[in-house]
């Protein structure tokens, strides 16, 4: 095996990454994925002196390492695809195709990833996109979106149905493409970049800003103190609790269970209000900064947090007990939207969506950062892969996270963490940062040029992997169960579209 083995948040010189022949590159990386413990966290291309340098990063969950290798190929070349061997690569290759015009001879479906700009062939747009068609008289198509009835993000879903039963779902995203990755290069100031990272997905502010802060600190050779690491871990876990609780409320809303919807909705409020107390923003914007923090955690904040959790837990337990024993709710949740273990492995799902299908994927355990090595995180694994499992997983992860927070507060590091000016980023280097957000693994990847300037920045939200899981989950389900399936994944549109 000819690859560079790195750890999470490690900065390595670009020159140390082996550049392979494409055929060898293909063989090596597809073979790596033969084992369940390895999955592709990032596979992308960037321009390097007129050629496209493809960079493939495979995470090994058992050893906590990331295997990096690369290949140089020409633009508009026709290549054999990774996807033909491992479907998990399908979206990465579609993106490469879209950005550089590299054609894949044996890729099953080079469906566009994003609209409308940043494309090698700008004339292809949504107006002339050929959706998957049916020829049958008996089947019917239902198109939903991109504008949805609830005030949510844009995305188009096209169902092929046999009566009430969904046979196929095609998901077309990219309507919200803002050009985040290009903006990272255009914005020179660190603060601008941090704010940009916070805005990648509005529901994963802590996740993305921690990923960015850790990456940037590693690139600048800064080692975060215990106080900073503590605050970041706390923010990630609080965000997990808050979003999971909100999702339980939304799941109840989608099956028209009013009590659950109202109570879980109310329970979410003190959680996000706590962020407001801590940093002045309910979504934790402004909390995480590379090189320090403007809102250091202190004894009085800890007291308020414990008070809030003490009030939260009994109500949460009672409502969960009520919801998860109510026959009408169970009838809607159980055996709805199943993703099997084999499907989850094949398409490379990550995070929560993987853990409900018996797939142990959790960066907190496999590539721990900040305070996670101290916590010795044990991922909660479910096996049925249905809506019920995804709801139960949320319930148990909330309890687990509350336990972690209580544990962390007992051993609170009290070093001051005022922001320090960071050094220059290392020149001609690559840094890869993995963070387990509430939805799953977030991957940020930066490449610097000769003077330490950013030449490429790559962001990957877990939704990038998981949207296909939703499309598979709803097959053979009732079309009226789609909303609850969709909510049980709660994937990000903007995190995918960037």
């Amino acid at each position, binding site marked *: 095996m000819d690859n560079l083995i790195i750890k999470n948040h490690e900065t390595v010189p670009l020159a140390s990454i082996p550049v392979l022949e494409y055929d060898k590159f293909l063989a090596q990386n597809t073979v790596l994925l033969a084992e369940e413990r390895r999955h592709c966290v990032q596979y992308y291309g960037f321009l390097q002196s007129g050629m496209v340098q493809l960079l493939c990063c495979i995470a090994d969950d058992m050893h906590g390492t990331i295997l990096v290798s690369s290949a140089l190929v020409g633009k508009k070349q026709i290549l054999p695809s990774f996807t033909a061997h491992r479907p998990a690569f399908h979206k990465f290759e579609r993106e490469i195709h879209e950005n550089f015009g590299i054609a894949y001879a044996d890729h099953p479906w080079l469906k566009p990833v994003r609209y409308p700009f940043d494309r090698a062939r700008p004339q292809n747009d949504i107006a002339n996109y050929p959706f998957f068609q049916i020829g049958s008289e008996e089947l*019917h198509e239902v*198109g939903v979106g991109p504008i949805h009835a609830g005030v949510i993000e844009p995305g188009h879903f096209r169902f092929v149905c046999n009566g009430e039963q969904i046979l196929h779902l095609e998901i077309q995203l990219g309507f919200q493409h803002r050009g985040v990755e290009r903006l990272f290069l255009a914005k020179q100031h660190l603060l601008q970049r941090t704010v940009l990272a916070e805005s990648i997905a509005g529901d994963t502010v802590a996740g993305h800003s921690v990923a960015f802060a850790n990456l940037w600190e590693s690139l600048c050779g800064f080692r975060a103190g215990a106080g900073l690491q503590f605050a970041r871990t706390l923010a990630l876990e609080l965000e997990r609790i808050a979003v999971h609780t909100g999702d339980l409320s939304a799941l109840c809303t*989608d099956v028209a269970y*009013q*009590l659950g919807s109202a109570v879980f909705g109310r329970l979410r409020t003190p959680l996000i209000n706590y962020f407001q107390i801590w940093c002045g923003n309910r979504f934790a914007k402004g909390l995480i900064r590379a090189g320090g923090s403007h809102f250091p955690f202190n004894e009085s904040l800890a007291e308020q947090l414990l008070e809030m959790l003490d009030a939260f837990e009994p109500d949460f337990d009672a409502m969960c007990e009520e919801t998860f024993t*109510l026959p*009408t709710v169970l009838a809607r949740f159980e055996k709805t939207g199943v993703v099997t273990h084999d499907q989850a492995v094949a398409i490379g799902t990550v995070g929560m969506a993987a853990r409900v299908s018996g797939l142990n994927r959790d960066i907190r355990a496999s590539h721990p950062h900040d305070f996670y090595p101290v916590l010795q995180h044990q991922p909660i694994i479910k096996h049925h892969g249905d809506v019920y499992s995804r709801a139960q997983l949320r319930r148990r992860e909330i309890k687990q996270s509350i336990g972690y927070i209580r544990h962390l507060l007992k051993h609170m590091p009290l070093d001051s963490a005022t922001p320090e000016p960071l050094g220059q980023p290392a020149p001609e280097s690559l840094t890869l940062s993995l963070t387990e957000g509430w939805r799953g693994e977030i991957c940020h990847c930066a490449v610097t040029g000769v003077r330490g300037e950013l030449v490429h920045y790559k962001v990957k939200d877990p939704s990038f992997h998981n949207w296909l899981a939703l499309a598979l989950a709803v097959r053979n389900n009732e079309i009226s169960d789609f909303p609850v399936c969709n909510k049980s994944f709660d994937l990000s549109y903007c995190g995918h579209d960037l």
Partner: protein
Amino acid sequence: MLSLAMIFLASLFFTGIVIRTKSLVSGRKGPGIFQPLKDVVRLFKKGAVFSQTTSFIFQVAPSIYFASVVMAILVVPVGQSKGLISFDGDFVFFAYILALGKFFSIISALDTGSSFEGMGASREALFSMLAEPAFFITMGSFALLTGHTSFHAIFTALHFGSYVSYALGTLATFVLIMIAMIENSRMPIDDPKTHLELTMIHEVMILDNSGFDLGLILYATNLKFAMYGAIIANFFISNLPLALAVPLFFAVQFFFAVIAGLLESFAARFRMAHNAEFIYTLTSFSLLIFFGVLLLMGKFI
């Protein structure tokens, strides 16, 4: 005339009470009782917008739908007082005039050419078709028991005296409440609060209606609820003097609204495929009523 006025009065606050009940039990204050009515009034002041793919059917359907509900109300008595029109076999007229209105709302949904509305129309057609036998077996059994075939005559001739007849009254109340929930597209069959087109039944059919037309449809729903409430009330008040019957009528309406609110608060909606099974069980309940009637009449030995 009295019954028409009372049903109209009940329709003013019925949906408001349902919504208020739901708000209170989920720990919120909720809108005022007359908020649904104010919404209707607001809509009445607006003009309607018609999509270019629709034909005249889409424009006349809301009026026909509303008219069908009003016509149906005309035959419903309250207590001793007859409906505005009353004749032998008027419960058959009642069912099919409502079906006519439903037919028009279904073809108007299909007229829009939207994939959602077709789906909703198909669900609505299926569920009301399945609910029909339950209504006819229930009313038919009472017709058999009393020997009359008009609402007014059936209810005035109905005497609850034995345990069996109490059981019949209870069963009939249950069947009628459930039919009312199905016909009004409420829980546990349909979720009126959802914003998700894919899970809607009735709401998705009226997505394209706006302004005055939408107001008519929404108000027809309120009227329909009050109408079913009146039929249920009749089981209890038909033999009482007017001074007692009128307050009792409103009490029954109120309790029905509260029950509807509670039904919608503490349970989730059924899975769409289970709806058909559930609605069909109503037919079994109505068969129990039928056998009960046979028992009362001594047809069983």
